[in-house]
């Protein structure tokens, strides 16, 4: 079953979009399904979370030296 027409390319965009705005129910379900089956996208998702966390540290660092 193909949930995403463009596979990981489309899933990756949703992983990123989720950081900026809530996904629709359909998007969320499709992404969850894809992540469950795809190790690469799961890693990508973790990488973005990590970068996001690093961004917060960076902000604090930039303000305090």
């Amino acid at each position, binding site marked *: 079953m193909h949930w995403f027409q463009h596979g990981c390319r489309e899933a990756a965009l949703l992983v990123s*979009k989720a950081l900026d705005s809530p996904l629709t129910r359909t998007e969320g379900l499709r992404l969850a399904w894809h992540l469950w089956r795809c190790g*690469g996208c799961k*890693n*990508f998702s973790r990488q973005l979370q990590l970068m996001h966390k690093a961004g917060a540290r960076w902000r604090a660092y930039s303000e*305090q030296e």
Partner: protein
Amino acid sequence: MTSTLASDLEQLRPALLKFARLQLRNSAWAEDAVGETLLAALEKPRAFEGRSQLKTWLIGILKHKLVDQIRRNSRELSLTRDDDDTIEDAIFGQDGRWVEMPADWGNPEQELGRVEFFSVLEACVEKLPGQQGRVFMMREWLELESEEICKQLGLTPTNLWVLLHRARLRLRECLQLHWFQSSAGS
């Protein structure tokens, strides 16, 4: 007293300019924003305990001045386009799969607090194409909401997500190459 402040400001100036440049991607605007920040600081000096408190205060002012600059130049900014960036075509194959599977970065909590990591991150942000760099900084450093960024830059929400996504794809590649790969080897 005032002269001490002036010399402290002078010393912090390069740090402020670095962030202003990363944010605006335009040296002249960055100079203006920093100039306005320093002037505002001189006009209403306060007592600070140490340099780091002073810097926190200045960065706070700078962020406002950067948003002002973006507003002032929003017309010009809305015309900037990162002409058909091909990053996604390089990362994904025709079948939509990863050409190279994203690696497991683990959970390097400690590493991310290191000063060296921030210099790599800054160098990677600097390498982003103009508009991608701007939106990334607006989102992650100025912490603006998506709607606000769209309004200032004349972007649709979809434009913005794609720009942010491409910025993150590029940053990820850059961090993989210059941080995760090289630190794994050492």
